[in-house]
């Protein structure tokens, strides 16, 4: 995939670069900001804040609850063996099984959704530069139109860097 990006040494310049790109008319979807930590105090980190993850986790938990109930009911009535004079299906011990499977459902649903939502593990190549892990912040425009490249270069350089890199 094609991308053009600049590496900034501090989050202030990166924020400046994002704003310049926006003023230059680049769509927000095409701007990627890569960093080695989440810079929560900066506006460029506040995009994509909405997430369904909490609802998915709750849904996973509900699924786990029903699985637990089903497991307990079906297995206990399959071979109805009397133990200790207790009823074949009793709520007290089965609530424990249901609780554990609820939490397991929530946890697994969260992790699976996380991987799906963040598109991990990636199969197709994505924009990246090893300098990011040394602390630089990468601001990229993905799939730019050919005619815009020089404009984008100027915009990115205007925020304090001298070199702009390209991925073809």
């Amino acid at each position, binding site marked *: 995939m094609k991308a053009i990006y600049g590496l900034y040494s501090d989050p202030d310049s990166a924020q400046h670069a994002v704003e310049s790109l926006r003023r230059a008319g680049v769509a927000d979807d095409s701007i990627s900001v890569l960093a080695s930590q989440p810079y929560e105090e900066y506006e460029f980190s506040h995009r994509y804040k909405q997430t369904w993850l909490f609802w998915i986790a709750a849904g996973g938990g509900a699924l786990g609850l029903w699985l637990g109930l089903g497991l307990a009911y079906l297995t206990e009535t399959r*071979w109805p*063996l*009397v*133990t*200790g*004079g*207790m009823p074949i299906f009793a709520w007290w*011990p089965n609530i424990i099984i249901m609780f554990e499977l609820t939490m397991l459902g929530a946890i697994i649903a969260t992790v699976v959704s996380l991987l799906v939502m963040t598109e991990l593990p990636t199969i197709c190549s994505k924009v990246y530069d090893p300098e990011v892990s040394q602390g630089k912040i990468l601001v990229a425009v993905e799939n730019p139109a050919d005619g815009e490249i020089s404009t984008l270069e100027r915009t990115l350089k205007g925020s304090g860097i001298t070199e702009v890199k390209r991925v073809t």
Partner: protein
Amino acid sequence: MTHRWGMAVDLDRCTGCEACVTACRTENNIRIAGPEQSARGRAIAWIRVERYYEGDFPDVRVKFRPVMCQQCDAAPCEPVCPTYASHHTDEGLNAQVYNRCIGTRYCANACPYSVRFFNFGNPVWDRPLELPLNPDVSVREVGVVEKCTFCVQRINAGKEQAKAENRELQDGEIKPACVQSCPASALVFGDLNDAESEVSRLSRSSRGTKLLEDLGTLPKVTYLQRQF
């Protein structure tokens, strides 16, 4: 009507001779522990005669109490077994399924009467002690918990005999090994659902008590207290 097997133990009659212990061992293929392993607490005795001494010499009184699996109706050993090896049959017996036991020994801990035993090793019978092994009773392998079954093999044999002869079971027809061998007739076995059986009568006796009754295990063995 389904049977409900129970026992009564007359503590007045028990002399502490332990014929019941020997008979049980022979009938049920109980492994031999030997003196060293017994000293380390590995001896198995499905029925044991507990001996309690009261008073100081020379006014010592000895009390004997045969204790075997009480086949509790609210058995604490049953719900704790993770594999259903210990469960209740419809004839009121607490079944121990050797094939299903994985040896967690939770049931043995939970039993307040300490009547469950664990096979610490594979059974070994030096010649000629393997000759009197009872073919009606399985030999338990290492890692399995076992206990008194009220000689369920004799119960089943008695029931089949009665069925084959097309008649009802008589009271006193089925005798577990301990009951059969007691010279003082201190042990009585029978059907608690049959109101006329001797064990039913004895369970209603005014001398009758249950062991550790306040734990709520609902044991089916009635102990008749000594009179003097």
